[in-house]
């Protein structure tokens, strides 16, 4: 998405489509960038117009994270692949306790993809980045032949800075720490599934896709000693927790009755034979902290729109190492397993 300056934006007809020449690197490519992406992404870094964006070196340690987005459908209740690609990567950066400072975006577009849809995606990406206060510093566009892609794939990379004194990581886990969850489970996955061909069902559930870095910044500022932050995306909460304890000397005990799940999500899961603990989220985080910090952090989460339903859901234990155990809604217990087999395809 570089060298855009000399080429002026042009107005494409409403039914125009992406052609192979839009990815050829010639004039058509520049025109596409100037017309579809630049107006929405506008920011000083991008406007430098170099092949590589130049950032001033911030104080602190740098984190980098990258994520490919291949979701189907591209547009879904509560978002689209554009906003998702921004939020997803911002959240990955934030889970390191970092403040994101810049994003990059690479597009693989299928020949024949309607330009109007591409513009809609670009607008939503630009909007998400602007709201987050993080510029899209540089980017790239490629076009593949018809049938070799599925509309659009977007890869975003995020760079962030970790404040001094923040040491987040799985090695910090210890028995007795509290496990907090920032809100309801399963909204994203259920919103996507409700749109799937052959599965369509009526629901008012929208994806929870959201950027969490502001909430994280406040949490980290108040409690720099947070042990761990994770966003329970693909595979849901169960995968996140299992990943943390598998092969370690620690286990986890959670309580089903206090895990927030929207009624509609629970009903949809019931209907589809799914477990909300296995469903993807795109705007939630799991925070593990010392018991003494739990209330402070919950209060901070609840003061943000993304964390209004935050709850303490469990504890890290030394019993049953390697396992995630749950006290069920009726007071029995069971293991919470990884999702096995294949989740419905392409949710993020």
């Amino acid at each position: 998405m570089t060298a855009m300056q000399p080429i002026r934006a042009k107005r494409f007809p409403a039914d125009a489509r992406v052609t192979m020449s839009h990815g050829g690197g010639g004039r058509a490519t520049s025109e596409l960038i100037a017309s579809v992406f630049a107006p929405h992404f506008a920011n000083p870094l991008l406007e430098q117009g170099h092949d590589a964006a130049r950032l001033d070196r911030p104080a602190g340690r740098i984190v980098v994270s990258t994520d490919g987005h291949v979701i189907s459908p591209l547009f879904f209740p509560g978002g689209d692949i554009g906003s998702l690609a921004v939020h997803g990567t911002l959240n990955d950066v934030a889970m390191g306790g970092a403040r994101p400072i810049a994003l990059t975006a690479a597009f693989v577009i299928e020949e024949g993809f309607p330009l109007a849809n591409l513009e809609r995606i670009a607008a939503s990406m630009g909007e998400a980045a602007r709201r987050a206060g993080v510029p899209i510093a540089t980017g790239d566009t490629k076009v593949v032949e018809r049938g070799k892609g599925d509309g659009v794939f977007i890869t975003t990379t995020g760079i962030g800075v970790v404040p001094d004194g923040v040491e987040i990581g799985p090695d910090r886990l210890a028995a007795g720490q509290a496990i907090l969850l920032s809100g309801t489970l399963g909204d994203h996955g259920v919103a996507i599934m409700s749109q799937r061909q052959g599965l369509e069902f009526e629901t008012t559930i929208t994806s929870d896709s959201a950027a969490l870095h502001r909430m994280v910044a406040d949490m980290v500022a108040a409690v720099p000693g947070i042990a761990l932050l994770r966003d329970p995306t693909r595979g849901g909460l169960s995968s996140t927790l299992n990943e943390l304890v598998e092969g370690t000397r620690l286990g986890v005990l959670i309580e089903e009755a206090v895990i927030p799940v929207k009624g509609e999500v629970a009903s949809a899961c019931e209907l589809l034979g799914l477990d909300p603990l296995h469903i993807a989220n795109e705007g939630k985080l799991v925070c593990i902290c010392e018991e003494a910090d739990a209330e402070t952090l919950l209060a901070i989460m609840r003061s943000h729109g993304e964390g209004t339903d935050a709850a303490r859901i469990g504890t890290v234990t030394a019993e049953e190492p390697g396992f995630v155990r749950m006290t069920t809604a009726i007071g029995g217990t069971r293991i919470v397993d990884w999702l096995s087999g294949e989740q419905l395809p392409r949710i993020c």
Partner: protein
Amino acid sequence: MKYVEEFRDRALAEKLSAAIRAEADPVRSYNFMEFCGGHTHAIFRYGVQDLVPANVQFVHGPGCPVCILPIRRLDDAIELAERHGVILCSYGDMLRVPGSKRRSLLSAKAQGADVRMVYSTLDALDIARQNPDRQVVFLGIGFETTTPPTALAIRQAADEGLTNFSVFCNHVLTPAAIRHILDAPDIDPDEAVHLDGFLGPSHVSTVIGSKPYEFLSETYRKPVVIAGFEPLDVLQSVLMLIRQVNEGRVEVENQYARVVTREGNTKAQDLVDEIFELRPAFEWRGLGMVARSALAIRPAYAAFDAEARFDLSDKTSREVKSCECPAILRGVKKPKDCKLFGTVCTPDNPMGSCMVSSEGSCAAYWTYRRAETLAEMAKDKAMAEQAA
């Protein structure tokens, strides 16, 4: 959601649990078979076992449609997709079940067969309409609950005059299987499972009603409680069974009266009767040949019967050696008795059908009670070594 929560209320569960503990006689044991995989799943999913005393045991029955399909029929389905080149439509759970040589419909698909996962029989009909130049076969499996939708699809296909749609029918009947299990102890005394009563199927009974279970109390003197699938339904039904046993009653009681009637859904029964007829006998994985336990498509609808339409070869189908699914499906063994459990056989790499379906016993133990099961297996092994 209100509806669901009402049946998962913790305070109510604790009340029922206390009543069960108070009324279960500590000097005897209570072995109740839950026939349905749906109950097995609910029991594990909610940890119901933790709310009853140790002398109340659940014996898991063969009511998991995917688990009981004999390997031979699965091999037939794979042959339909591969040799006859049909579009084979199946419910998702079935795709991963290993057939002979551990080949599944999914592996056949990976090797080029046209196998498609559908959510309903109507999806299969749609595929047939969209592919008029291809033969489309729906792999019909399941108990009395899934039979009416299959019947409906066949009638619809007949009404529309579809010539490229057929059903590979493997629909089976619950009461016949229960009868078979109760007769089994006479056949092979080594395998006698002592059963004190049954948790009767809920969804199946909404279709067939509670009447077909009356032979259980009349002939076999076994208490039956038709139970809903919610964990509180299960607890309440266990309490009802304990009371029958303690009072020496043998009745068919209906805990699930909010949905199940004695006569069931006669409209659905009529529809099934129009399309299907009784097979003299049918093979069940684990149970072997069971008399009058399955349905075939009536000759009048032979045009929609994949068995009539395609020539299926003779084959010698083989189970994975040392997979204990058959004994587990009869209720005489538990997953921990299988050497392969958790080592060679896991849901990601299943050796037998019981590890595939979420309603299968091995999958339930693995998913929800793995820690305890692996610990028990280690203990059993240590004891065996000591004895040797």
